[in-house]
């Protein structure tokens, strides 16, 4: 093995992260040094990883196998296999991590002297390492261990700012929910092991009967669905993401929840095989519900990071919609459509990692500059932080799937796959698919509305509080990191074929086919789904035409308009002459029409109380609007309340505090296990 072989790069990357995390812990007294060293190591390591994964995708069809620990026991085997699918997810991870690490140089500088930077970087690097292992492990037990490790490390990062009680609560909710998901995953793995006697993820699943496969699929769907934040299992997400430091939220939302997409593809498509069409249909339904409800809830939030967290639920919905279309088409034996939908789904995974990562970094910049995450206290930041504002605008356009950014390409491919699926299909799921089209439309438009609100209220208008007044542009490293992400978003939007080709090659190992014959073009993408016509788009042409028209209209205005003077004057105030920042539209006011229309989802309540003066001329008026999540109130809360009552009631009959009872419990357990073992 020469030094230039790229599997060595992956080993080197893992080694660097491992050493780096220990160095970070050792340097915890020297915060500044630790910050630079840790980020330097992560940037180098992830650059190696990016290179290695691109080489793997471009290089060939064979997989890389690495093994950390071998033993004769079936489950203690820590093996890694890197095929195209792993490589594309590793690429997503490394692209985002490079930027997030660059960003952290500036962002963590505000922690000097206040928090333990060494501990932070130890957790940060171990967290990234655990995700690398999740994407590469080829053994279900190893997968389970690193999956659990990822959950625990991200839990510690969520409660990193643990002096605030809401962060601790968010962490508790997160760890509970993620463990419920992991429990289902474990059940699925165990059932599958009981038939195949192997934990190999690349093995055959022929020994599992069809009925058991259905059960295993449901277990995996629940397990991965919890991590993906699919509705109704999403409740941890809007609490955990805002609680973590912003650079960690970017990683969590950008990559960690994508491990669920990877898991579904690897475990269900790769291992179980797609036999039943209803698996895909179920995923489509979950996708539709998550896409629409996710963004609808995002519309109601006033905490910038909670808006982004709910928006992640929406985007996971779109990803799941694509995945569901793919699963269904493959189950019906329609390889072409299945692969197109799979590519759409993975492309949207990549896109979402980039723009949502960028948006979380942007939220971090806002928090860094103003010290608040409450959108109602911001405003006018575009004048104070022009570069950050421009970058956040780019990401907002991307997340609203607007040309010429990358979000649009993912949506277009998803739409094309649905189109091809309906046009070619002869099955009864078409009505569901047309609802999927409507959901894409509704989610897209609501996302645009939500991000106009996000951008408009926080960056435009007049400053709403001192927080916004004292804001300054953030350190350069933070803007550079976001700039790189924005550039990647734009270039995928303009040259989508590069990304599509990469993903197509990456999925070759999974499906053994390529759709590149059907997709053509340099600047443009055209998809020949039909025999005689092609559907094609070209964001580049659209962008070029837009720019030319803007230039021509400027020219025309100069020729026709004559002498032009622009005067700056106060906003029109109806002659009132006392317009102030509190009279602007608020974020809550902005979303009011939507809140009223979809009141069944939000259960809005309002309270108005007056103080002093007479009834008609009070001195102060307090007006509060509250909306609540139906899922929390009507599903989770009753369950939690029941569980608490029940456990309180049974506490003293089971947990007596008497040591003899506990010894009896252990004894009975041992007897039962021995009896079970001898009978089976």
């Amino acid at each position, binding site marked *: 093995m020469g030094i230039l072989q790229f599997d060595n790069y992956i080993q080197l990357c893992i080694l660097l992260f491992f050493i780096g995390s220990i160095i970070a812990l050792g340097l915890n007294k020297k915060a500044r040094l630790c910050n630079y060293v840790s980020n330097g190591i992560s940037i180098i390591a992830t650059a190696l990883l990016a290179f290695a994964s691109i080489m793997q995708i471009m290089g060939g069809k064979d997989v890389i196998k690495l093994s950390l620990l071998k033993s004769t026991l079936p489950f203690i085997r820590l093996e890694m296999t890197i095929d195209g699918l792993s490589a594309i997810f590793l690429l997503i991870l490394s692209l985002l991590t490079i930027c997030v690490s660059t960003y952290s140089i500036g962002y963590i500088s505000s922690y000097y002297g206040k928090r333990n930077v060494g501990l932070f970087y130890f957790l940060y690097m171990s967290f990234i390492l655990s995700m690398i292992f999740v994407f590469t492990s080829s053994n279900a037990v190893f997968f389970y261990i690193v999956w659990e490790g990822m959950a625990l490390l991200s839990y510690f990062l969520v409660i990193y700012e643990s002096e605030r009680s809401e962060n601790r609560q968010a962490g508790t909710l997160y760890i509970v929910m993620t463990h419920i998901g992991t429990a289902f995953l474990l059940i699925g793995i165990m059932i599958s092991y009981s038939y195949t006697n192997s934990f190999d993820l690349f093995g055959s699943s022929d020994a599992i009967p069809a009925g058991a496969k259905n059960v295993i699929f449901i277990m995996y769907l629940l397990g991965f669905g919890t991590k993906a934040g699919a509705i109704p299992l999403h409740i941890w997400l809007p609490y955990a993401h805002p609680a973590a430091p912003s650079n960690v939220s970017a990683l969590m939302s950008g990559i960690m929840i994508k491990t669920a997409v990877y898991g579904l593809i690897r475990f269900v498509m790769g291992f179980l095989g797609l036999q039943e069409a209803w698996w895909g249909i179920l995923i489509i339904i979950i996708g539709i519900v998550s896409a629409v409800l996710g963004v609808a809830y995002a519309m109601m939030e006033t905490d910038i990071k909670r808006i982004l967290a709910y928006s992640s639920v929406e985007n996971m919905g779109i990803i799941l919609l694509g995945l569901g279309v793919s699963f269904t088409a493959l189950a019906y034996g329609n390889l072409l459509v299945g692969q197109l939908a799979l590519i759409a789904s993975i492309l949207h995974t990549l896109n979402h990692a980039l723009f949502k990562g960028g948006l979380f970094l942007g939220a971090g910049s806002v928090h860094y500059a103003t010290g608040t995450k409450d959108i109602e206290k911001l405003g*006018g930041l*575009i004048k104070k932080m022009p570069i950050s504002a421009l970058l956040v*605008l780019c990401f907002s356009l991307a997340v609203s*799937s*607007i*040309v010429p950014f990358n979000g*649009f390409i993912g949506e*277009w491919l998803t*739409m094309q796959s649905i*189109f091809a699926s309906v046009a070619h299909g002869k099955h009864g799921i*078409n*009505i569901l698919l*047309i609802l999927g*089209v409507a*959901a894409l*439309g*509704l989610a897209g*438009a*609501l996302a*645009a*509305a939500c*991000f*106009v609100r996000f951008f*408009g209220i926080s960056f*435009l*208008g*007049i400053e709403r509080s001192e927080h916004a007044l004292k804001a300054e542009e953030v350190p350069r490293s933070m803007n550079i990191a976001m700039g790189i992400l924005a550039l990647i978003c734009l270039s995928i939007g303009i040259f989508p074929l590069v990304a599509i080709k990469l993903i197509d090659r990456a999925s070759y190992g999974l499906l053994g086919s390529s759709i590149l014959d059907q997709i053509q073009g340099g600047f443009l993408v*055209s998809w020949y789904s039909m025999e*005689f*016509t*092609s*559907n*094609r*788009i*070209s964001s580049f042409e*659209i962008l070029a035409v*837009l720019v030319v*028209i*803007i230039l021509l*209209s400027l020219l025309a205005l100069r020729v026709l*308009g004559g002498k*032009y*003077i622009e*005067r*700056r*004057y*106060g*906003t*029109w105030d109806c002659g009132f002459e006392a*317009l102030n*920042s509190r009279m*602007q*539209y608020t974020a809550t006011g*902005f*979303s*009011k*029409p*939507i809140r*009223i*229309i979809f009141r069944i989802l939000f259960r809005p309540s309002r309270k108005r109380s007056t103080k002093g003066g007479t009834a008609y001329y009070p001195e102060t008026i307090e007006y509060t609007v509250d909306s609540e999540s139906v899922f929390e109130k009507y599903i989770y809360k009753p369950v939690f309340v029941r569980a608490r009552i029940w456990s309180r009631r049974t506490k003293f009959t089971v947990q007596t505090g008497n040591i003899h009872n506990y010894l009896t419990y252990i004894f009975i357990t041992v007897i039962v296990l021995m009896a079970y073992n001898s009978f089976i």
Partner: protein
Amino acid sequence: MTYIIYIIVQIMIMLLLAPLINGIIKKIKAFTQKRTGPPILQMYYDLFKLIRKNSVVSEASSWIYKAAPYIVFSTSLTAALLVPVTIKLVPSFNISGDFVIFVSILALGRFFMMAAGLDTGSTFGGMGSSREAMISSLAEPSILVCLFTAGLIAGSTSLDQMMMFMQAKGQGIILMNPAIILLFLALLTIIIMETARIPIDDPSTHLELTMVHEAMILEYSGRHLALMEYGAAIKQLIFITLLVNLLLPHDQFIGAAGLGGILISLLIYFLKVIVITVVIALIEINTVKLRLFSIPNLAALSFILSFLAFLQYFLLGGGYVQLI
């Protein structure tokens, strides 16, 4: 070369025809109210006057406010390129765009218009943006389902390909096809929602209780206002063009090729646009403005119409009813 000719003709027709639609609607409304009303060409005069005037820009605003008019105007014109006024002119190769990107381009313009509404710090702007956000969210699913169904019938998502298919199949009596009728009604409802016409929004009022589009652009003056108004007018014409050329195709009746054929085709297109304009004016005269929170009903209506069109297409198994 054909491509450049196509672009020039397309843009010129959109630019020249768009303000006329507003003039005709105003004239018909004035006629029913026993007024003389402004001249049909009034909007041209207004636009010309506005671009020669100086602008006042709010102190609170940023570059978004000044960029928005240009972006709104150019996105309208760019979207116009995807909706051919006559099939005769469409170059032999496809136009690089389909209905998904068409909706996305318009969304870009709308994004900046809503952002500009928030940029001045005025209550009116925020109010307009907030309402526009609601209306556009409600209209978007119907547009996509409507065009998706039309695309399924035609076998392509490109608007020009759809139009070509429709005219090729339109030899029989096209209006006898239930799917087409349903799509026609759905698209007509969408036009009213998208172009700020009366049951949704009143373009001639500046009352804060009712205005939507006008509230967003309230602060604009001079050339910025001209671009905003022009952009909105072009967008209205695009949707009318989409309706008449997609669902009432006419080019199959014209045998003549070459310049003569193109001119006849454009003339028929012009007449069809006038007819739809009159229909929109009649709707505007005969309805009252809906309460803001009744708009979802109208949106649901158009969604259900497009959904039924899809079901009809689907139940007939893609067959095209030809009654000869």
